[in-house]
């Protein structure tokens, strides 16, 4: 599978004058109705939003053992609604210096920087995007903004929307369903294998670079898709909450790969929900990197519904000063001969904290199921913290369940050895950390992996922030 080679230098855009938009804070039923009205949504979607809003208002905040501190999250200080035709009001001057420095060090081109910082207007990748669209459209693949897809393919969207993650599942997904806006819809017809990875990056514009985007991916029987969301350069949002939703439906024999590297700015609460339902002999792979944000609570979930279904979770989390990355995997084996693997790597430094929180459930009758969970944590100094909190419920005897975790620091002997071969201490640490992350980065498309490695190296060197 070849990724499209994007010539980023082609997209230099002139700066545009901005004007201040009056921002509305807080969430009321009225705002939910206005969101729906401004998008001209069908009644069922409005009803869904209102039911979700009610659930959000009634549900308490989570109160889990050792969960990240959510006390600074003030629902009334967040903007949930921006008029569809309003332009981004943020000016480049408002963007924090640390974000600008990161762009500089990663070599991100000018126009892209603005889009990432929410400053640029339409990020015009029309040329590349349209050619790609034409090629896959010929096969019947739909790759569209979810807002647009709701209008152009209403029956298809209605069939699947919110059927993977229920609107009542938890407080933040209820909020998400009430105010969702933007996001991606991908539909892969029966037997179609999409060779090139599809990237949300192509459509990065101010509307969809939002904090409540919903991604809906449907892979019909025998179809295959590889999707890439986000990028490792930091995303700057003044609104400090990201409560997105990703729903993936994999039908019989289908394959879906979801790659996502999230690096929200350090004022953000990242409370995303990702879930896949996998039918007979289907496969889902979640490949993710969690950097940035002050607190993350993210547990990609795979429901192995059909016999022979499979899920692979591969992730890396990085926490530095002031960050609490609480991530993990939820896997439900509901049918016989299902398989799951989890490879979770985390790094904490300068007082940051990472946590692996997993739930593994094997239903009675899911005979022949196999699962293997491996979570490893690297700590750089004695003020950083890491925890591992897996929960396993095994209700079937004819299974093979294995779980292991390792925690430690970079071995002094290893560093000494590399230095004795001529590397500086920084280079030695960099090499060892890259080796530690290799199982994850080798699954990412190349330019992503390079960017991720570079970013983590910069974080470790202390060159950032």
């Amino acid at each position, binding site marked *: 599978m070849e990724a499209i080679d994007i010539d980023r230098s082609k997209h230099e855009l002139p700066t545009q004058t901005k004007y201040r938009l009056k921002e509305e804070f807080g969430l009321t039923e009225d705002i939910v109705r206005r969101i729906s009205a401004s998008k001209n949504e069908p009644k069922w979607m409005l009803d869904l939003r209102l039911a979700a809003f009610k659930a959000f208002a009634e549900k308490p905040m989570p109160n*889990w053992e050792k969960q990240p501190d959510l006390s600074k999250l003030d629902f009334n200080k967040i903007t949930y609604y921006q008029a569809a035709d309003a332009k981004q009001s943020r000016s480049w001057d408002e963007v924090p210096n640390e974000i600008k420095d990161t762009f500089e060090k990663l070599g991100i081109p000018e126009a892209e920087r603005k889009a990432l910082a929410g400053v640029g207007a339409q990020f015009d990748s029309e040329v590349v995007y349209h050619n790609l669209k034409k090629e896959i459209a010929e096969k019947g693949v739909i790759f569209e903004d979810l807002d647009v897809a709701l209008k152009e393919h209403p029956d298809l969207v209605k069939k699947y929307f919110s059927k993977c993650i229920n609107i009542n599942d938890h407080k933040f997904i209820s909020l998400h369903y009430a105010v969702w806006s933007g996001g991606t819809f991908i539909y892969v017809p029966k037997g179609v294998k999409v060779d090139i990875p599809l990237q949300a990056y192509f459509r990065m514009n101010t509307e969809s670079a939002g904090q409540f985007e919903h991604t809906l991916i449907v892979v019909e029987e025998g179809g295959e898709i590889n999707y890439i969301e986000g990028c490792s350069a930091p995303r700057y949002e003044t609104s400090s909450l990201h409560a997105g939703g990703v729903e993936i439906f994999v039908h019989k024999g289908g394959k879906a790969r979801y790659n996502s590297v999230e690096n929200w700015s350090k004022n953000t609460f990242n409370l995303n929900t990702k879930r896949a339902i996998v039918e007979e002999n289907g496969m889902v792979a979640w490949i993710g990197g969690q950097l940035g944000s002050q607190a993350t609570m993210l547990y990609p979930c795979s429901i192995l519904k059909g016999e022979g279904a499979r899920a692979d979770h591969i992730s890396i989390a990085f926490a530095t000063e002031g960050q609490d990355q609480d991530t993990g995997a939820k896997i439900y084996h509901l049918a016989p001969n299902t398989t799951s693997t989890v490879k979770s790597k985390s790094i904490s430094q300068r007082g940051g904290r990472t946590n692996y929180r997993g739930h593994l459930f094997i239903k009675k009758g899911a005979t022949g199921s196999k699962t293997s969970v491996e979570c490893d944590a690297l*700590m750089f100094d004695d003020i950083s913290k890491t925890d591992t909190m*897996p929960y396993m419920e095994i*209700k079937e005897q004819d299974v093979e369940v294995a779980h292991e*975790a*390792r925690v430690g*620091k970079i071995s002094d002997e290893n560093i000494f050895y590399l230095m004795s071969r001529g590397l500086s201490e920084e280079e030695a640490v960099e090499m060892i950390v890259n080796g530690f992350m290799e199982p994850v980065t080798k699954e990412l498309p190349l330019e992503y992996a390079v960017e991720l490695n570079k970013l983590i190296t910069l974080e470790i060197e202390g060159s950032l922030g």
Partner: protein
Amino acid sequence: MSLVIEKLVPPRHVSTPMGKWGFFKQLDFSSLEKETRPTVEVEGITTTDITKDACFQVLEKELDQLTGIHYNEFTGGLHVHVQQQPEGPIVLRHTVEKDAFRTTLITIEPGITATIIELVEGNAKICSLATEIVAKENSHVVHAHVQQFHGTLLARKAAKALRDSSVTWFELNANRGNTFSRVATFMEGENSETGSYSIYLGKGNDFIDFGAQGENLAMHTNTNLMTRGVLTGKALAIYEGVLHIGEKAAESTAFQEEDCLLLSKNAEVKASPMLYIDNNNVKCSHAATAGHVDKEKLFYLMSRGLSPESAQQLLVKGFVWPVLERLGEHAAVVGPYVEPIVEAFAEGTHE
């Protein structure tokens, strides 16, 4: 003086985002028929009776509802004060025929090595047994808890390990009914270490809620937890292992292993091995597995002439013995109390 139980917190149990695991909340302490005096046979040392206020040296009485209830309903306590090197193992045999709330307080003076075997048998609604160990500097204690109780057993074990000392716990749970068992060691002294080696055997409607905890609070401390269970019938086991490395515990290590063999369709295990690490200069890991008897191994043994029943029994015993073997030279002393029980259970797994 009586503690107000409602003001205390429930004892630590696995608390997942989806809900809590365990049966403690369902226990009824209102209609107890308590013993007037505990019956404990002691061999190998002279013990003294102690009051409830002399107990709770390691466990705080207001730690949680279980310690609070144990304090309020206290029926008797024994102090095992090991001041000189004992010649052989110290054996305490508890017989429980009525509801009991007993404490065994063990103090080991510096430089002494002791092996203590605590057995509990009997039949009652509730038996709450607390064992507290204070291992002073450079003392080494091996404590084996062999449980064959019918009813609900609430076993609470905790140790404080001072500098250079070691506390090795061994537990065999062959109870019929419900077991709530917690074992914890607080390594407060540098260079102290602890091991907890437990076997649980469940069948019928047994409900086992087991938790092991290692608190590495000082430098150069070492924790090793190993738990293996065999479940058949409709037995349910919950396991929580907590390895906590404190901020000051540099150069410490902590390992945890939990394995469960499920021999029947209705047996169930829930496991939660946890790591809380607050210092980076450490080595920690854990591993957990669950599954059934390896079919290839069964086939191999049958091809050598064993019946399927004998083959399974052999594999069940082979699964469990490594836990006993972790006691090293002390396995020979503890073995005779443990082996017959395991053999009997293994033979019964075809019922």
